[in-house]
């Protein structure tokens, strides 16, 4: 009896958790299907005749699609670059002995903590003098400041958890460190690499401040686009929610597909 009551409680609580997590998305999507008049009705209505007009406007008149493509290009490239640079560095930090290692690791991680506004000001001026404003490459590079630390942090932990005797044989056979990393350690560290890649992608896709300051039209990112409808004169709530939905759907689908790796890899250096 006691257990069935506690089971009931568990079910109720889990349902509450799900509802709280999902409801805002439900509201976002339904608002995006409302006309401005319906969206402004007070108290809000739950049943109404849906319209796709907001999506039509967002996609065809305001070129949201292009900003989505920009965001995709930037997020994929910066993630790839962060892995390319970060995985070998993580391997060295985990398995080599050298002076200043601790400080170096600390410096990498600290970069993750730096507020983007600290970098945005000077980066704007530098990009301006190098004629790099409004270019994809600029965002791809600057996103490294938060992606590289994440990759190094998570993947270093993963490499450290791999026992040394595994690659003993390979080393005796004269394999280079690079081969050991690639052939032996990397496959075992895959969960961590995947998690850091997922995080990189999500953080880059969602980033707003750099996108706002360093792009204008050509490389404008999707979050910067969503913000650009916020004219104090007239807030088109339906269209803003339609754009929001378009921005969020891809990353949510991505996160859901990757959720298994995500949940498994979030051990954050717990004892292996």
């Amino acid at each position: 009896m006691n257990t069935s009551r506690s089971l009931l409680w568990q079910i109720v609580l889990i349902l509450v958790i799900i509802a709280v997590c999902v409801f805002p998305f439900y509201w976002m999507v339904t608002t995006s299907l409302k006309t401005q008049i319906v969206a402004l009705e007070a108290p809000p209505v739950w049943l109404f005749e849906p319209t796709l007009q907001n999506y039509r406007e967002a996609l065809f008149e305001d070129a949201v699609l292009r900003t989505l493509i920009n965001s995709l290009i930037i997020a994929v490239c910066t993630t790839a670059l962060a892995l390319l640079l970060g995985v070998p560095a993580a391997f060295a930090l985990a398995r080599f002995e050298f002076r200043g290692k601790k400080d170096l690791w600390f410096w990498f991680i600290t970069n993750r903590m730096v507020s983007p506004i600290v970098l945005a000001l000077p980066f704007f001026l530098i990009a301006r003098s190098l004629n790099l404003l409004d270019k994809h490459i600029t965002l791809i590079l600057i996103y490294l400041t938060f992606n590289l630390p994440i990759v190094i942090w998570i993947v270093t932990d993963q490499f450290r958890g791999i026992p040394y005797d595994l690659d003993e044989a390979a080393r005796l056979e004269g394999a280079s460190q690079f081969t050991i990393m690639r052939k032996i350690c990397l496959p075992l560290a895959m969960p961590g690499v995947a998690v850091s890649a997922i995080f990189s992608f999500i953080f880059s896709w969602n980033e707003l401040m750099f996108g706002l300051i360093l792009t204008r039209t050509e490389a404008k990112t999707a979050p910067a686009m969503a913000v650009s409808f916020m004219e104090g004169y007239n807030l088109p709530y339906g269209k803003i929610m339609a754009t929001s939905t378009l921005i969020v759907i891809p990353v949510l689908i991505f996160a859901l597909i990757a959720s298994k790796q995500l949940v498994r890899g979030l051990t954050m250096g717990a004892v292996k």
Partner: protein
Amino acid sequence: MRAQVSRRTIFAFIGPAVFGLAIVGIAPLLYAGWTSLHFFNLTKLKRIKFIGLENYWSVLTDEVFWQAMGRTFFLLCTALPLQIALGLGIALILHKPGLGLLKTLARLSLVLPMATTYAVVGLLGQVMFNQKFGVVNQLMGGANINWIGDPTNAFAMIIFWDVWQWTPFVALVLLAGLTMVPGEVEEAARLETKSWWVVLRHVQLPFLLPGLVAVLILRTADTLKLFDMVFTLTRGGPGSSTEFISLMIQRVGFRGFDQGLASAQAIILLIITIVLAQIYIRVFYKEV
């Protein structure tokens, strides 16, 4: 035994990352350091001049700056305990055996908030917390609460969204920690005591600690960086009630165009961040 390798090998592995991060991380900081020592206004580039530490002096004596700083830490001190408490609760509920499908569903839903674009969270907040046509007041039984226009309520609303977005992250990290506890140890403990608290304190906590420290570090950093959600939700208002440190620097640097002053503010923020990071990592985090 860790491998003894040549300097060249070490450099080959670690050099590119150091080089890459130095270009995008350090070069702008040096530039910001230079800017912060000058009168440097974007709309008065003809009048750039060296003024020594004057900008730093202005920042350090400006109560508005310290108020924004205090507000930021107040947010951290209110939101983070909530996130950890709720996150731990969720993790424990999901860690209980049984209810496979429902728990999978819950885990999937937990992934959603943390993946959501922060700017979109703010926009969503504007729609849902509107006094007149917002669904939050409706769900609260037709309450007439002025969320966005009242300083205290606006702050509460920011806390709500921060907790909504990041509690799932905490929950998932802690859940991962819980699954690390060897099954037989946990079972043995449960046979000895009925109190979940004892089990948590003595058996599970050691496995949760690394995750908690990581959460502490990441959430502190993210609160100091907090910009997007507040920018789209309240823009720091009403008054200055939700103007956190990153919003303030953005305002000075890109709306007032005083890049010199903003750089000085940014560098002071950076110093505070590094000190905090040092403390956290050296004190709590397992050494490399």
